[in-house]
Structures are given as structure tokens and as C-alpha cells.
């Protein structure tokens, strides 16, 4: 299909609608929808789609949007929705339940700052707050990734080895409202990529079961272990979903993480989404100038790809984690998990957190240059640095120490 110039929201709405339509030979599709800036265009697009076996239910709240989606899913349909920010917070109870019910729902989330103070710009704190729920989380950096990962999400979620819902996340406005050339799938391609959903535990008149009734602690443990095992299978199944995608679409939707110049880097930046896109340009420029810097772009957040991240960082002694989010009393969420991934690592590494673009501020190449300059001066890891706060960077800068002097980041 020729490239079209569309927004990230358009790309998401297109992928969701075509995925739903692809299940017309199965039990159909349905979703509950509710508006919130900046995702509204997604559900508008879905509402306008001429489903041949589908129903779009415009409800009164995000809580009900996910409830309708859950009801459709448990009845065996392909079900999805979209939300953002405080909408996700209002939806949270049913997000959790959808995961624990092992329903292969796909939700596109546009990452928007949680309020108050009220702010509609990009910040990942809204979806990262869902980190402890049984949802797979993928972060897209551009319109094509939004489109491709949304389709991959259905195949991954519906695989019987997984049966977990998937969040596909994109930055507010920077992706959601920015038009870019995007290769949009045809219905024939999506039909070929997504087999009809077969939910093994769907409601069945011939085999009546009660979903979600009381259990004792031992059965709860079994349930959580099942979730954990499914989560552990995600990297393998995701690889298979990528391969199948490449066969149909002729391109790789790309995997859990992507890295550039890390093999011999002494300094690596770890980040995600559009911040990674900007960071890549900075890293390429500084590489060309002879600096041994590299970049790891994270797409998969849950399950957290610990070993892939460790491997990608190679022997780098300085790791800067850039978070467009803030967990109160702690720091960046990506940083916390990155630190944990290096627990017990043989190398002494400095793992420094930079809170940058929180609340949707522009993360410019100049800011990332400042981060790399700062990272080069530090001998020990400091508490998370608020990059845009004046004087936060290069505080007490000293001559670059020998790497042997570095302490493990704490």
C-alpha cells in the first residue's frame, strides 16, 4: 500500500479498526469508547469505521469503556479501546481486572501528563503507573511503530501461550497529532496476519463457569504463577509475532529493544519513545566526533526485558536513563527498573537518572548534549536529576575520573 501522511492517532485508529474487522469471520468485535484529549481522534476513527460484524459502544466514562470492552472480550470477541492520562486513572480498576481475567484486549494509550496541575502534553507517568498489572506494555516512537505494534499487539495478546492484554503507548501530540508518512495496512494484510480470536475461557452456555468468584490463597498463587509464566513467554512469542508480521507486511515491526553503537560504548543512554528518536541524532553526531557513546531504545516495558537490556549495554560503565515521568518519592520509573536489571552485575557501573521532558517539555538535542556532558563528569551516581531545573546539570563537575573509580549506581 502506498505511504499515507497521517497522524499517530489516525494510524492507531486504522490498526484497531482493521484488526476488529478481521475478526468478522469469528465472533466479531466490540469496544467501549470515551473521549479524552489527546486520544479522542482514535475512538472517533473507530466509531466511524463500517464494521461488518462489530459494535462500538459510546459510554459515559473510561471505567465503563473498559467494562464494555471486557464484556465483549469475555463473550469471545476481539475487543479494544483507547485512553489517556486521568482517563486511564479512572479506568484503572477495570484495566486491572481485564488483565487478571486474561482477556486479550488491546488498548492504545496516548501518554499525557497526569493532572493536576492540568496539562495535556506528553508524559509517560499515566501508563507507567499500570506497571504492576498483568498487561504487556509497548512504547512506540513514531506513527509507523504505533500502527505496526498495534497489529502485533493483537497477535501477541491472543496467542494461547500469552492471553494477556497489551498496551501500545505513544507520546501525546509529538506522535498522536503529528502527521508523518505511514504505511497503513490493507484489510487483506490484516486478515492474513490476525487469525480469528479463539478465547478458550469465553462464556459458553454448554459449559457454564463463574469467572472471578472467590478463591483461596493457594488458587490465587496458581493464578499469579500462570500470569508470571505467560509474561516470561512474551519475548519468545513476540519474536514469532514479528516474524509473522514480516512475512505479511515485508518489514520488521522491531522488537523489545533497539540499540545503536553500544557494542564498544563506554557511555550508553537508555530511553524510550520520541526521546529516543532525538537521542539517536545526538548519539550519532557525537559518535561521528569520536565519542564512544551508544543508545538503547526501549519498546517493551512489561515484561521488563532485563537480559536484553544488560546485553545491549555491553561493557558500558556509564549509563544514563532518561525518564519522561516521575514516580513521587523515587525518581524515574525506567531508571528504577534499569537499576534493578543490573543488580549483581560484575561491572562497576554508574547508572544515573535524568528526569527530562516531564510534563511535556521539549526534549531538545541541546538538553541531551547537556545530559551526556553531565554524565561524563560524575564519579558516583547522584539522586535523579531534574534536567530542566537550572543548575541541575553539571553540578560540581570535575575532571573525568578513571572508570575504575566508578561506583555502582545506587
Amino acid at each position, binding site marked *: 500500500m502506498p505511504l499515507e501522511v497521517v497522524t499517530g492517532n489516525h494510524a492507531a485508529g486504522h490498526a484497531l479498526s482493521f484488526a476488529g474487522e478481521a475478526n468478522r469471520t469469528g465472533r466479531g468485535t*466490540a469496544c467501549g469508547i470515551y473521549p479524552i484529549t489527546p486520544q479522542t481522534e482514535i475512538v472517533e476513527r473507530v466509531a466511524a469505521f463500517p464494521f461488518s460484524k462489530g459494535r462500538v459502544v459510546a459510554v459515559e*466514562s473510561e471505567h465503563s469503556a473498559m467494562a464494555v470492552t471486557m464484556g*465483549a472480550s469475555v463473550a469471545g470477541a476481539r475487543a479494544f479501546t483507547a485512553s489517556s492520562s486521568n482517563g486511564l486513572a479512572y479506568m484503572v480498576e477495570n484495566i486491572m481486572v481485564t488483565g487478571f481475567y486474561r482477556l486479550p484486549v488491546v488498548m492504545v494509550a496516548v501518554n499525557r501528563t497526569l493532572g493536576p496541575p492540568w496539562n495535556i502534553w506528553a508524559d509517560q507517568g499515566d501508563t507507567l503507573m499500570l506497571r504492576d498489572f498483568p498487561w504487556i506494555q509497548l512504547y512506540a516512537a513514531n506513527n509507523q511503530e504505533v500502527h505496526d505494534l498495534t497489529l502485533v499487539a493483537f497477535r501477541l495478546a491472543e496467542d494461547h501461550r500469552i492471553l494477556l492484554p497489551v498496551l501500545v503507548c505513544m507520546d501525546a501530540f509529538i506522535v498522536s497529532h503529528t502527521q508523518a508518512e505511514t504505511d497503513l495496512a490493507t484489510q487483506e494484510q490484516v486478515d492474513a496476519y490476525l487469525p480469528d480470536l479463539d478465547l478458550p475461557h469465553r462464556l459458553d*452456555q454448554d459449559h*457454564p*463457569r*463463574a469467572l472471578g*468468584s472467590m478463591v483461596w490463597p493457594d488458587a490465587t498463587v496458581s493464578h499469579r504463577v500462570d500470569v508470571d509464566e505467560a509474561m516470561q513467554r512474551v519475548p519468545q512469542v513476540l519474536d514469532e509475532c514479528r516474524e509473522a508480521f514480516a512475512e505479511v507486511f515485508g518489514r520488521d515491526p522491531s522488537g523489545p529493544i533497539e540499540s545503536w553503537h553500544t557494542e564498544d560504548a563506554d557511555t550508553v543512554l537508555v530511553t524510550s519513545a520520541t526521546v529516543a528518536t532525538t537521542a539517536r541524532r545526538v548519539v550519532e553526531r557525537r559518535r561521528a566526533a569520536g565519542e564512544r557513546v551508544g543508545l538503547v531504545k526501549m519498546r517493551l516495558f512489561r515484561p521488563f526485558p532485563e537480559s536484553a537490556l544488560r546485553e545491549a549495554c555491553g561493557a558500558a560503565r556509564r549509563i544514563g536513563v532518561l525518564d519522561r515521568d516521575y514516580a513521587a518519592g523515587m525518581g524515574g520509573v525506567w531508571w528504577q527498573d534499569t537499576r534493578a536489571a543490573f543488580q549483581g552485575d560484575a561491572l562497576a557501573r554508574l547508572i544515573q537518572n535524568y528526569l527530562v521532558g516531564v510534563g511535556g517539555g521539549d526534549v531538545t538535542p541541546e538538553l541531551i548534549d547537556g545530559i551526556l556532558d553531565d554524565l561524563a563528569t560524575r564519579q558516583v551516581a547522584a539522586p535523579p536529576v531534574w534536567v530542566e531545573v537550572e543548575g541541575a546539570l553539571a553540578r560540581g563537575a570535575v575532571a573525568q575520573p578513571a572508570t575504575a573509580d566508578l561506583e555502582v549506581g545506587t
Partner: protein
Amino acid sequence: MSTVESTLTIPDIPCSEECLLRAGNTNCGGCGMTLGLNMLGRALAEADQQCQLAIPACCGIVAAGAFPTTAYSAPTVATTFAAAAAVASGMVAIRDLNGESHQVICWAGDGGTYDIGLATLSAAAERNEDIVYICYDNEIYGNTGGQRSSATPPGARTTTTPAGKQEAKKDIMGIMAAHGIPYAATISVAHPDDARRKFLRAFETRGMKFLLIHSPCPTGWKSEPGDSVQLVRLAVRSGLFPLFEVFDGIRYRVNAEPDWADPAEYFARQRRFPPDAVDLDTTRRVCRERFIRLHTLAGAFPA
């Protein structure tokens, strides 16, 4: 004036594993919810209808029992407290897309209906979803040990209204009728024939159905289990709980005329009402006015 004919004759459908609520559940003695579920099950069997249940947090889902067993013979989803009508909307959508014919039934308590689930229910009613929404109203958060809900009547002592509730009971029937839904009706478990007819009517009606069951709860009402049916019968006789139907939100039919039995006995036989907690003169006046209003509506807009 006499109460509606309410014999206890029921269709000859044995309670077996084919019943909606199977034997062996752990519900309390004298539980009105249990009676309501059995009446619902018999009506389903009589109408040769299958169903799926969406049950929010309430005794109704506890009644399913502990995994992997279930007391329900129909597919059942435990929904979040506020979400029953929305989950059922998704279930109905997929039922209809696949040409299936089972009833989708929400079975919710008053907390999940009058309080936390009201916005969800209102939205489902506004969309006229093809759901049978049944509220078994025991006028209390029973499952959590007896706290006030907006269905708790004035004077009732609960753990969160230790001095007795001051406020009136919310008029949920008025709220649901105001949505203009095809069918809304009240049910007393002391009137099984009337209940049967209303269940069957609900199954035949396309769109949103709302059934309100006055459901005695001996644990919460501090009453004798053996008194349950007599108590709710007394509520009908004294005009405290009118039996009526509303069609399309406009046409009314009153199903039982009170004989205006003294409501004092109703209150005296429940220890949730401390002595003198209920102003009986006001109660009698409110009941009479309610019936004048219902008859006025039924006269102007007969069913």
C-alpha cells in the same frame, strides 16, 4: 381492597442442577436474594430461556461459591462493583452479533445499583441496552456487614448510621422510569405469581428492563429468618413497597392495592429500627401520597 392473589403454587419445575441457583449454596436462611434467584430460575425454565449473568460485588457473587465450583448453572462474570451494566452491554453486543438468544442478566444489590453503579446503569438505560437488570434491594450493604446505602429507609440503624438513617430512601424506580426504558417493575418475593409474570414480561421485552426486588435480609434487618416473606408481604400490604410497572417510562400499572395494614408491625419485627425511630404518621402519609401519585399516573397514562 385486597392484596394481589399470591398463592405459592409454582410451575412444576423441580429444583435440580438445571435450576439457576443450585442446591448447596451458602446463602443465609431467610435470604430474599435466594428466593428471587429461584423465582428467576423458574421463570427462565418456564420461558425456555438460557442466560448469562453479570454480577457486581454483592452477596450474589459470593453465592456462586468458591472456585472451582459454582452455584450458578449459567455462565457468570463477576464484574467490578460499578460496572455490571457496562460489562453486560459488551456481552449483549457480542450475543447479538452472533445471533444468540440467551438473556443477559445483571444481578446486583442496592449498593451496586442505587449508589456506585448508578452512572453505569443510567448510561446503559440511556442506550437502551437489551439487558434484564435486576436489583435485589435489601436496603443495606449486606455483604460488608450492614452499612447504609441510599436505599436504606429512614430510621434504620446500620453500622454507619448508628443513630438511625435520617434521609429518605432514593426513588430508584422514578429514576429508571425517567430514562423512558421499555419496562420497569417492582417485585416482592411474597408475591411469586406477580414476580413470575414480570420476569416473563421482561424476557419478552426488547431493550432495557429494570426489576426491583424487595429482598429481606435477616442478617442486616435483625429479623427472624422465618419472618422474611411475611415482612415483605406486610410492606406491600401497608403501602411501604408498592407493586407496579412502568412501560416506556410513561404508562403505569399498579399491581396490588394495599389493605393499609399498620406498618408499625413491619418496623417492630426488625431490630434495625430502634423503638420510635420511625415516625409512623409521616410514614403512613408518605405511603398514601405515593399511591395517590401512582394511581394518578396510571389513570392518566394507563398501561
